[in-house]
């Protein structure tokens, strides 16, 4: 059964799109990670123009994150002060990012830029997860997180402590420089606009390992910022690039919600390290597929410049 997408300007198979959302939903339910970083590349692979894929993915992230954010707020896991500071950067980053998308599209290389960013990002995430899971399987299970927390960025941490505008964030029980938090928000906002991701894969580790926040507070605060960052990115993409396809976003979201329910139930029956290796392999596989598109000789030397649909 096909449905014509007004903004993408093309018909798509409803079950294919909901299926893609579903697969990513299962993964996110299974692993508790955001699916944004997998969804945009998958949509692009199935022919959705990259700019529409990224913008519509941001739109569905609004739907996917708002209920989780509310739930965490009720449980007191959201550090509103941290989230709001982060959002100052996130909103600016998202707005700048949407303009950057416009510039890159006019240059004809948005496609290329997004694919490159994705290859680098998926390679880092996939590689990190893969080696971490291998280590965990080798037997360093319990103290792994603590070790990273203590050992890793001591020099960088000192630098962070030397930054001006150090402030107390009471809910998380940490002290951090406003400049660092705003800067981190800016980067995440920029990536959100360029790639249609929520950015949880950067925000959560940064909050835990660099800022020293408790895990639940990091996850809650991350979801809180994602809701607003992706709301801003959706809006900016709509007014700057006209690339938000509401119908596409709703289809993906319906698929991913059902998938997430399945994934959450499955996760109780599977071993954590094994499924993490599985996820890292999936991420690496998508990365290799995108990398091949960059290094292999294209079938056609003359191609349509991806302008993101619309007529």
């Amino acid at each position, binding site marked *: 059964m096909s*449905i014509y997408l*007004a903004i993408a300007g093309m018909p798509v198979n409803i079950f294919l799109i909901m299926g893609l959302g579903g697969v990513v939903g299962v993964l996110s339910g299974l692993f508790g990670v955001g699916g944004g970083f997998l969804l945009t590349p998958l949509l692009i692979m199935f022919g959705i123009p990259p700019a529409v894929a990224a913008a519509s993915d941001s739109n569905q992230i609004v739907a*996917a994150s708002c209920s989780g954010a509310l739930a965490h707020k009720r449980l007191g896991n959201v550090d509103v002060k941290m989230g709001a500071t982060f959002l100052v950067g996130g909103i600016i980053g998202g707005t700048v990012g949407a303009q950057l998308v416009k510039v890159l599209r006019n240059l004809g290389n948005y496609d290329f830029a997004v694919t490159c960013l994705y290859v680098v990002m998926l390679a880092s995430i996939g590689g990190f997860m893969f080696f971490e899971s291998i280590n965990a399987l080798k037997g360093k299970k319990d103290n792994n997180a603590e070790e990273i927390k203590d050992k890793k960025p001591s020099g960088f941490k000192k630098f962070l402590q030397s930054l001006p505008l150090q402030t107390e964030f009471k809910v998380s029980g940490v002290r951090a420089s406003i400049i660092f938090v705003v800067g981190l928000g800016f980067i995440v906002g920029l990536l959100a606009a360029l790639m249609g991701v929520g950015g949880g894969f950067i925000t959560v580790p940064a909050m835990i390992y660099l800022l020293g926040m408790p895990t639940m507070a990091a996850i809650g605060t991350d979801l809180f910022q994602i809701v607003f960052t992706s709301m801003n990115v959706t809006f900016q993409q709509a007014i700057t690039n006209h690339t*938000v396809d509401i119908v596409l976003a709703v289809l993906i*979201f319906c698929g991913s919600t059902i998938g997430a329910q399945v994934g959450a139930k499955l996760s109780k029956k599977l071993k954590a390290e094994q499924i993490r290796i599985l996820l890292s392999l999936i991420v690496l596989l998508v990365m290799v597929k995108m990398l091949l598109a960059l290094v292999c000789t294209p079938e*056609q030397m*003359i*191609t349509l*410049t991806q302008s993101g649909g619309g*007529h």
Partner: protein
Amino acid sequence: MKKICFVILISVFLFLTLAVPSFAEELTLFTDKDSIDVDMRFNGSKVLISGQAPENSNIYVKFLSPEKSVSLSKMGKKVVLWMAVENVTVEGIPGMFQILSSGPIDDLNSDLQARMGIDKNYKSVLSKAKVLRHGDNPGELTGDQAENFLNGLININQEKGLYCIDEGGVIKKGNSYEANLNIPADIPRGISTIEVYAVKNGEIIAQTSKTIAASPIGIVQTLSQMARDNAFIYGICAVGIALGTGLLISTVFRKINQIVFKEESDLGAHH
């Protein structure tokens, strides 16, 4: 008296209806639809063309959509990565162009081909196209450079089913003809023209044409118009719909989980 009148009326009616096919030189054009509606269920379409054709003539059908400028990129290798190295816009070229005929195009002499705008190499289309380069060194491309881009575009359009030449696509049965136009999903919006020529002994003996509009209707029209003309409101709606759908569906699933799976936690999977 009544009977006589009735007989006269019947004879006149029969004369009129039966007389039409006897106009052997007439060329008519009918389509099974007057417009191509792009709605939510649109996935390309077919237009059935039919009509009367002069005896022993060949029928040539040309479908010509409005011009649509297209941006093209030429791929090139930078170190190890393939990326767009040259970007152009092609102007003055129809978004869709199809030729269907009941006889070979080679039967038409070059003068006739030029007059009808029908040839095997899309010459009539390409001769009006302009290839404009973007970037640091803007300007119109000519010669081989332009041809390279134009041939690339023809290939792309042929693959999409927008461009085609089908000698034999028109079926002639006695004094009538029939053809099926395949309209792909990305037909350009606007008014297209269908031209039909009847050719006999190397001469055009009759020609006719008809327009057909392709336009979005219903939700597709509302959404694409709003996204373009009222982007501010569209953006707010997109965010609002996402928030609404997100909260609604998560509530539904929480209830299902509570009732069916007896789960209490509302911290499900998240993105």
